[in-house]
């Protein structure tokens, strides 16, 4: 897979369109040691995401497998499918297990976000000063664009006036 393909996959990933298989391919590539400089930020991101990935131990997988196997072993003997108590129990355990894993994963993802993105300022006054400075910087840059548009409009209006006057004079003559 060349850099072009990876670049396309990365773009697709940020757009949320990658399949599970493509995400694995990306992870394989970006978690290598010698990632090209171009993909360094993406590699950092994958590393960050990878450290919070779900850890499923072999014991857990075996436990789930044996539970699922137990579903297969029991075949319906009658035309009517009757679920035994054991089967209900197994489904219950599997569902609980999945729920616990899901909740743990959710807690982990919440923790990761809150630890990485904590408020820079503890004092609201400092936060206010920083906010005003940020808005000022934003406004300075934003107004450079809007002022240019206004100037262009003014020039256009002036040009239109001159054309109109010339046309009038032409008609009067």
């Amino acid at each position, binding site marked *: 897979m060349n850099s072009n393909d990876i670049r396309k996959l990365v773009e697709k990933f940020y757009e949320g369109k990658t399949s599970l298989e493509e995400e694995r391919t990306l992870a394989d590539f970006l978690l290598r040691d010698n990632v090209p400089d171009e993909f360094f930020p993406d590699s950092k991101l994958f590393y960050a995401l990878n450290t919070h990935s779900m850890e499923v131990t072999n014991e857990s997988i075996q436990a789930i497998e044996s539970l699922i196997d137990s579903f297969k072993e029991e075949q319906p003997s009658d035309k009517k499918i009757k679920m035994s108590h054991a089967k209900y129990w197994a489904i219950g355990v599997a569902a609980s297990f999945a729920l616990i894993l899901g909740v743990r994963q959710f807690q982990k993802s919440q923790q990761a*976000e809150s630890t990485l993105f904590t408020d820079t300022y503890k004092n609201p006054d400092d936060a206010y000063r920083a906010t005003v400075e940020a808005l000022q910087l934003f*406004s300075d840059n*934003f107004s450079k664009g809007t002022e240019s548009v206004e100037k262009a409009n003014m020039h256009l209006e002036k040009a239109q006036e001159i054309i109109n006057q010339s046309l009038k004079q032409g008609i009067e003559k």
Partner: protein
Amino acid sequence: MKKTILSILLLAGFTFTFAQKNPFEQFSEMDGVTSVYISKTMLSMIPKNSKMNYGGVNVGSFLNKLSSILILTSEDQKIAPQMLSMANNRVKGRDYELLMRVKSDDNDNVNFFMKGKPEDIRELIMIVAGNDGENVVMQFLGNFTLDDIQKMTEGFNK
């Protein structure tokens, strides 16, 4: 069936891990990057008696519509371009629309991107590629309109 259940479990875990991540997070802790993050809670704690009036515009009403402000600044020769590339990658998605592109007198390239509709903007990103090698990424999250932004910027420039 076993495979299906296992795949569902693993897929759920994988997608969960990838959900709700802000790609700018990684830069907030990096050496060579100055980062400022102001949460909605902190914005709501700003004293009401602060001088919120700029050029006749009450900036407080704009702040109330924000859920967070993130500012990343870097002049590190290696990190600054990476930060820029990550920001540009984020706004390449079809959810983002280029609002304005400005080339300043100092030869700084400034791009403004928004996510959402002009009457319902969810994210506003300003990416500054500085001529002197200093790059700035500013991200405003919240729920505001293009009109709110114009009023706020007019107030600051009066």
